[in-house]
């Protein structure tokens, strides 16, 4: 019995119509040619392909649009109960019309290859617009819920208050500044560690290292980039945090929390090393050899050449790389969730636990959330802030890097 229900399900029916269209069109093309396929403008299989795509593409396009329309029209949250009968009928009908239309167009001089490729081209264009749709989806979903949030909560309190204390019974104070402060502080420490290490590693690898050392050191550093951030987070939680607490913050009397800005910053710094070093490596290698040779010719040592010729020439690119790394640091989640703590405070002591925008997005949206309360919706406002911040940094950094590349091309 299940075979019957499977065969009559509209999805399978449309698939079958397409396949049948292919076979029929191929046979029909052969028949039109009178057995001599040299007379045909297009190969029989191209006629078949045209019939197949004429059946599938409009039908599936229609059903996707219909699904979207239904969601917008209904505007209810919760599960959808399948497709309406009318939509199902139209779905199958469209496939049939497409196949029949393609079959009817078969002539000896019909350019089936061009027709079929038109459909393929449409599919390719659709696939590449998904990137734009994703961006639109991100912006719309963030904006819609943020506006919803600001209806319930005054935007002045959000942007100007320095207190973050959500209470689930209501009457919360949701000022963004403690979170921004924590984010910037952690990112600052991470960059303070990653930029010198990454930059010097890149300089050494591109200017000094023997090919043999390069062969093992470069993959080893790049291995750091392939490790998932949850691993870094666990490393911060079970190794770095307790180590810093027992050997630095407690003996120095600076605090007794294992999760701190320092913990998260250092571990994030390790994560960013390969990022800074591989970008800088590319940029340093792009500096023309002639500039180095000129410097050597004047009697400069290798380090003098690097400091006074190569680095100034590469500076815009390196700044771009650092900005990209900064945007990564700001958006990083798992390391700070496990390493930085959850207490929203503004303090200068790096051994104290602080929290970041990403940590609060996670904590406000996990567990049982009520999407009508400002305590949950604030996460969308935080997400929008994060998105705007990282997007701005990225666009600026990519602009600098591109400008720099053009200079030497």
């Amino acid at each position, binding site marked *: 019995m299940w075979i019957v229900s499977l065969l009559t399900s509209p999805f399978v029916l449309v698939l079958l119509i397409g396949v049948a269209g292919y076979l029929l069109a191929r046979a029909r093309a052969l028949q039109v040619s009178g057995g001599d396929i040299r007379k045909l403008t297009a190969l029989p299989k191209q006629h078949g392909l045209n019939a197949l795509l004429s059946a599938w593409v409009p039908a599936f396009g229609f059903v996707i649009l219909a699904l979207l329309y239904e969601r917008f029209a209904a505007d209810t949250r919760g599960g959808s109960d399948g497709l309406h009968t009318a939509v199902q009928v139209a779905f199958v009908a469209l496939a049939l019309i497409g196949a029949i239309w393609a079959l009817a167009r078969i002539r000896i001089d019909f350019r089936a290859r061009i027709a079929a490729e038109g459909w393929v081209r449409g599919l390719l264009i659709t696939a590449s617009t998904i990137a734009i749709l*994703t961006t639109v989806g991100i912006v719309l979903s963030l904006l819609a819920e943020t506006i919803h949030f600001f209806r319930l909560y005054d935007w002045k309190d959000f942007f100007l208050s320095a207190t973050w204390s959500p209470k689930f019974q209501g009457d919360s104070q949701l000022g963004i500044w403690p979170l921004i402060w924590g984010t910037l502080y952690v990112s600052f420490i991470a960059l303070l560690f990653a930029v010198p290490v990454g930059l010097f590693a890149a300089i050494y690898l591109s200017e000094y290292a023997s090919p043999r050392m390069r062969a093992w050191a470069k993959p080893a550093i790049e291995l750091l980039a392939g490790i998932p951030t949850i691993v870094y987070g666990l490393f911060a939680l079970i190794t770095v945090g307790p180590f810093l607490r027992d050997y630095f913050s407690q003996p120095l009397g600076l605090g007794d929390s294992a999760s701190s800005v320092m913990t998260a910053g250092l571990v994030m710094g390790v994560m960013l090393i390969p990022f800074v070093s591989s970008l800088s490596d590319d940029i340093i290698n792009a500096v023309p050899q002639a500039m180095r040779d000129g410097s050597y010719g004047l009697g400069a040592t290798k380090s003098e050449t690097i400091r006074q010729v190569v680095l100034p020439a590469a500076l815009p690119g390196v700044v771009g790389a650092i900005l990209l790394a900064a945007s990564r640091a700001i958006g990083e989640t798992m390391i700070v969730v496990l390493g930085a703590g959850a207490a929203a405070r503004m303090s200068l002591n790096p051994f104290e636990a602080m929290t970041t925008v990403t940590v609060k997005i996670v904590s406000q*949206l996990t567990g049982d959330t009520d999407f009508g309360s400002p305590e949950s919706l604030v996460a969308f406002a935080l997400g929008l802030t994060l998105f705007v911040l990282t997007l701005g940094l990225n666009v600026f950094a990519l602009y600098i890097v591109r400008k720099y590349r053009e200079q030497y091309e």
Partner: protein
Amino acid sequence: MTDASMGAAVPRQTKSILIEDARTKKRNAAERRFRAYGLAAICIAVLALIILLTSVLGNGLSAYKQTFLDLEVALPAEKLDPKGNRDPAEMAKVTTLAYGPVLQQSLVAKLAEMGLTTEASNKDVGEMISKEAAATVRNYVLAHPELIGGTVEMNILASGRIDGFFKGRVTMESAALDKNTSPEVLVIAQALKDAGIMKTRINWDFLTNPDASDQRPEAAGLGVAILGSLYMMIVVLVLSLPLGVAAAVYLEEFAKKNRFTDLIEVNISNLAAVPSIVYGILGLAIFINFAGLNQSSPLVGGLVLTLMTLPRIIIPARAALKSVPPSIRDAALGVGASKMQSVFHHVLPLAAPGILTGVIIGLAQALGETAPLLLIGMVAFVRDYPEAYSSSTGLFGDPSTALPVQVYNWTQRADPAFVERASGAIIALLVFLLCMNAVAIILRRRFERRW
């Protein structure tokens, strides 16, 4: 301009050039220092990698070993089958709560038989056995009702504290402060181990068991998480491979340089740098709240990861297409192929190894991604293995967790035994990543052509 005339004009060099003057010394020292900084930077990076890996391996390898207890369990008929008719349906009414005391009595009897005396109460002795063991024995008994009334030799889990004692996590001092165990119990455990009744052995169940509750870390495993991750990877592969390749082909081979394609390109490079947690918010708002898909299902997780992975696949795929020399296209066009045929019959197969390498690396990144999955509810406690398809929840619609999320989940538990489990899970994750990257490297080495 000869050397002689220059030397005569400026009689500067008075010493041999083999003897460094003060300025040269300074410059050479600066050179050496600079070099040392570079070397130090590389050492720091490599050292960080080594410490990271040893810390995770050191903490996690013990998760693959577990302490078990060989025990003859007496199965008293009056407790386990009060009706006395050996009907599994009737016996199923006896819950695991009744099996706990049965196991406890068997262990106490065993101690008495061995001649071990202790100050610990019978209840403390019973707590040496995992709470999971009661369920194991119950399932076994329900499957073999004829065994009731006799004894059965069972291999059951010891509790997390006892296991921790043999792995060095629990000591006599910490046990004295712990209300779940006591130093006397640990002495018995040692005696049982010496007698060969308790053994710590390799435990592959860690990879297949589902998660367990807070009180029984010894039974927690990765089965559900691995299955969930597998389902998500299938979704990501099935969606992102065709979409990513199609987008790359269009942008690289067909798109004319205009506003629209420029917009797409800028968009893709920016999407690759959007923080992953933003994709989580997108998934929550679009796939769960708007489209009404199931929370914590691998389908939603896969969709979110697909959107995140797409730009990371498109960029290397375009590079692979670009590296195919134009002469291939020209030759195809020259013998009458259409543009589409030249791309699909010639360029794409030649670029395939490069594209696949990019896809595998993109999948590996998606496999390790945690943050977006937290937001779509994959942190939930799931004990049932998710079905790939079920009629009520649809394709990949069952709630499940994922490997990296399971790690996060376990770090949030109170019992320190879960830290060992989390590190063990990381080892599993890293092994999967290593395999995927190895495949990518082999593909690149063996099939990629350089023109």
